C-alpha cells in the first residue's frame, strides 16, 4: 500500500493522472493538472538551481513530495467525519480527550533516579519544586533485572543508571516527605518485575496512609519488548507476559484509576525498527496482553482503559505528529471492531512520549533545541504524558542542571508560543493528513505481516523482530556515515566531541549505603512472616494464580525484589540471550 502511494505520487510527478483521478469531478482533476504545471514551470527550475540532492524519504520509508494540495487528500479518499471526527470522540484521531491541552495540558514529567534512596529523595523534591507533575523512578539495572543490591551480578551497577530499590524500606526513604497524592502520577518502568513494583507502590501508599484511589501509579510493565529491544528480560517471554498481566488484573479490582501498563514503541523504534514497524510490533504486544486479560474473563471495557502506549518517532517532526494521530485512530478502530469496546475510555488511547532528537556528543547544548523540537511534535500530535531527554544523556546519567532544562522546556511548550491553545492544530494540513494516512497504512501492513507470522511471541521466538531491527539500525548507521541523513556537528560541519569533565558522577558511597540499608532490613524484619509470604508467592506462581496479592503481602513483610524474582527464576527458568546480530 505504501508502495502504491509512492507510485501514485510518482505518477503525479510525471503528469500522468491515474485512472481514479481521471474519473473524479472537474475541480480535482483540474488541480492535479495545475500542480503538474506548477512542478514543471515554477518548482523544477528553482529546485534545479539549488541542487539539493538528498533523497526526500522519511525514516520510515515514505516519499516526501515537494508540495501537498487538496488533490493529495482526494487521492487517499480523505473523509473528515470518518477519518478525523472530533477530539475526544471516535476515532479519536484529533485527540483522546475533548479539550486536550486547552483544558488540562499534558502532564509535565521527569524520569529520574540515581544512587540510593536518600540521595535520590532530595533530587525528587527538587524536581517537584521545579514543577514536575509526574515522577517516573529510574531504577538501577540490578533492580530492573531482579537482583538485590548485594548480589554478585549487581557489581559496579548499584545506583548507576537509576536508584537502587531492593525492598519497601528503600521506597519509604525514596518518597520521604513526598505524599503519593501530592503529585499527579508516580511510577516506574519495572518491565520484568511488574507485580513487584506495583506492590511496592501499593504498600507505600498504605505506609503513607493514602488510599489507592487517591493517587495514580503508572508503570511501563511491558516485558515483551524487552526481548527485542531494551534488554532487561529475566524469564522466558510467556511467563513474563503473564506476570505483567497479573499486575493489570489486580488493578481492575483494586485500583482501576491506575495506569499499570504502557505498551512501548519507543525502544523498538530506537533499536532500529523505525516508527511504523515499531508501532506495529508494539500493537502486536498490546494485543497479546489484551487477549490474555480477556481470556481471564474480563471485558474490554474494563481492561483497555488501564493500558496506554508509549509512541516514538524522533527523526521526523511531521511523521511524529502523523504517527500519534494514526495510532490513536488504529487503536480506536481495533478496540471497537475487534473487541467490541463500547466505552470511550476503552477506545481513546492515551500516550506517553519521551522527547528526543538526534542527540550528539559534539556541542551537546544543541541537543536542547533538538529535544525541544522532538517534544513539540509529540505535543502537537496529542501526547498526554510527556518526558523529555536531558541534553547530556548521550554523555552520562543526567545532572540537575540538564534535568531542569528538560522540565523548563516542557513548561515552555505547555504555555508559550500558543502551541497548546487549540486542539490538533496541524489537523487538516494536506501534508500531515497524507502522512497520517501513509503511516497508518504502513503500521497496518506491518501488523498484518506480524499477525500472519503468529503475533507477538513469534516476533521474539523466530527472531523476526530482531532481524528487522538490526537491518533498520544498519540502514540508519549507513545513512549517517554517508551523510545522507544530515546530522549537524557530526556529518555536517563535523566537530570533535566536546564534553570533557562535565559528566554527572554517582557518589561511590551510595552503593555502600544501599547495601547497608538492605542488610539492616534483612536483619530487622520478621523472618517468619517473610518466609510464609515467600512460600505463598511460590505457591501462587506455581499454580498459575494471579501472583500480585501474594507479592503485595511479601513486599509488606520486607521481602526483597531479589527474593521474589528468585522464586520466579526457579519456577520458570531464565531467558536465553540471542547471539544473533
Amino acid at each position, binding site marked *: 500500500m505504501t508502495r502504491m502511494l509512492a507510485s501514485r505520487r510518482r505518477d503525479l510527478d510525471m503528469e500522468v493522472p491515474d485512472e481514479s483521478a481521471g474519473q473524479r469531478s472537474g475541480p480535482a482533476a483540474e488541480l492535479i493538472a495545475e500542480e503538474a504545471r506548477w512542478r514543471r514551470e515554477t518548482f523544477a527550475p528553482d529546485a534545479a538551481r539549488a541542487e539539493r540532492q538528498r533523497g526526500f524519504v522519511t525514516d520510515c520509508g515514505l516519499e516526501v513530495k515537494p508540495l501537498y494540495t487538496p488533490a493529495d487528500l482526494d487521492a487517499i479518499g480523505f473523509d473528515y467525519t470518518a477519518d478525523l471526527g472530533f477530539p475526544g470522540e471516535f476515532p479519536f484521531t484529533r485527540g483522546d480527550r475533548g479539550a486536550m491541552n486547552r483544558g488540562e495540558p499534558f502532564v509535565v514529567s521527569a524520569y529520574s533516579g540515581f544512587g540510593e534512596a536518600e540521595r535520590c529523595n532530595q533530587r525528587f523534591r527538587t524536581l517537584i519544586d521545579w514543577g514536575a507533575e509526574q515522577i517516573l523512578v529510574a531504577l538501577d539495572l540490578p533492580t530492573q533485572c531482579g537482583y538485590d543490591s548485594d548480589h554478585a551480578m549487581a557489581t559496579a551497577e548499584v545506583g548507576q543508571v537509576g536508584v537502587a530499590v531492593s525492598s519497601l524500606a528503600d521506597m519509604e526513604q525514596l518518597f520521604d516527605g513526598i505524599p503519593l497524592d501530592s503529585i499527579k502520577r508516580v511510577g516506574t518502568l519495572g518491565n520484568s518485575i511488574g507485580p513487584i513494583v506495583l506492590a511496592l507502590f501499593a504498600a507505600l501508599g498504605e505506609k503513607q496512609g493514602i488510599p489507592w484511589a487517591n493517587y495514580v501509579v503508572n508503570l511501563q510493565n511491558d516485558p515483551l519488548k524487552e526481548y527485542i529491544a531494551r*534488554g532487561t528480560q529475566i524469564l522466558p517471554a510467556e511467563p513474563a507476559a503473564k506476570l505483567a498481566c497479573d499486575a493489570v488484573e489486580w488493578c481492575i479490582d483494586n485500583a482501576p484509576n491506575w495506569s499499570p501498563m504502557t505498551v512501548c514503541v519507543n525502544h523498538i523504534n530506537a533499536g532500529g525498527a523505525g516508527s511504523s514497524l515499531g508501532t506495529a510490533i508494539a500493537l502486536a504486544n498490546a494485543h497479546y496482553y489484551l487477549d490474555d486479560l480477556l481470556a481471564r474473563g474480563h471485558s474490554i471495557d474494563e481492561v483497555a482503559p488501564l493500558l496506554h502506549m508509549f509512541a516514538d518517532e524522533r527523526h521526523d517532526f511531521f511523521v511524529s505528529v502523523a504517527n500519534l494521530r494514526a495510532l490513536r485512530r488504529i487503536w480506536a478502530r481495533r478496540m471497537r471492531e475487534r473487541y467490541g469496546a463500547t466505552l470511550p475510555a476503552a477506545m481513546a488511547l492515551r500516550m506517553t512520549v519521551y522527547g528526543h532528537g538526534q542527540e550528539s556528543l559534539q556541542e551537546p547544548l544543541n541537543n536542547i533545541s533538538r529535544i525541544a523540537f522532538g517534544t513539540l511534535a509529540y505535543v502537537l500530535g496529542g501526547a498526554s504524558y510527556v518526558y523529555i531527554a536531558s541534553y547530556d544523556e*548521550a554523555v552520562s546519567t543526567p545532572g540537575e542542571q540538564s534535568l531542569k532544562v528538560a522540565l523548563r522546556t516542557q513548561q515552555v511548550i505547555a504555555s508559550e508560543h500558543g502551541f497548546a491553545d487549540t486542539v490538533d492544530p496541524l489537523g487538516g494540513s494536506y501534508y500531515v493528513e497524507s502522512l497520517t494516512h501513509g503511516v497508518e497504512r504502513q503500521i497496518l501492513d506491518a501488523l498484518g505481516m506480524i499477525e500472519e507470522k503468529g503475533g507477538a511471541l513469534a516476533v521474539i521466538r523466530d527472531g523476526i523482530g530482531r532481524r528487522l531491527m538490526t537491518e533498520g539500525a544498519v540502514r540508519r548507521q549507513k545513512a549517517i*556515515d554517508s551523510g545522507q541523513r544530515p546530522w549537524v556537528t557530526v556529518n555536517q560541519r563535523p566537530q570533535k566531541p566536546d564534553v570533557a569533565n562535565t559528566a554527572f558522577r554517582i557518589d561511590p558511597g551510595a552503593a555502600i549505603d544501599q547495601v547497608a540499608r538492605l542488610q539492616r532490613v534483612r536483619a530487622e524484619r520478621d523472618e517468619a512472616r517473610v518466609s510464609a509470604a515467600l512460600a505463598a508467592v511460590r505457591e501462587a506462581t506455581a499454580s498459575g494464580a494471579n501472583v500480585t496479592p501474594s507479592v503485595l503481602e511479601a513486599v509488606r513483610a520486607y521481602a526483597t525484589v531479589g527474593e521474589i524474582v528468585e522464586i520466579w527464576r526457579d519456577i520458570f527458568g531464565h531467558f536465553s540471550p540471542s547471539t544473533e546480530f
Partner: protein
Amino acid sequence: MTLSNRKIRVLMAKVGLDGHDVGARVVARGLLEAGMEVIYTGLRRTPEQVARAAVEEDVDWIGISILSGAHLTLLPRLRRLLDENGAEDIRIMAGGIIPQEDIPELSKAGVSRVFLSGTAIAEIVDYLMAETVHD
C-alpha cells in the same frame, strides 16, 4: 612479524546488566561486512564469561559495548582476566556511553581504544586494520 592471511577476529560483547545492544550489533554487522570474523556474546555476560569466550575463540579484539556506567570497574577487570589467562595479545576496544574524561583511566587499565558516539563504522574498520598484526 609478517602479515598473514588470517582474517581479523572480533568478539563483540555486552558485559554487565546493560541491555542496549543495537550499537554492538550494528558494529558487528559493519565489521562482518568489512571482511572480519565476528562473534557476538549476547546480553548480560560477566567479564569472566567474556574473557573465556575470547580465549576459546582465539580472537584478536574484544569490542565491548557499555552504556550502564560500570565501565571503570568491568573493563579493567576484563583486561586483568585476559592477562592472567595468557591472553595479553587480545586487545580491547569499547564504545557506548563513556564520559570522555574516563578515557585516560581506561587507557591506563589496558583498553586500547574508546570510540565515542557518532563514530563512523569505517573509522573502526580502519583502526582495526591498522592495528591488528598477525604473527
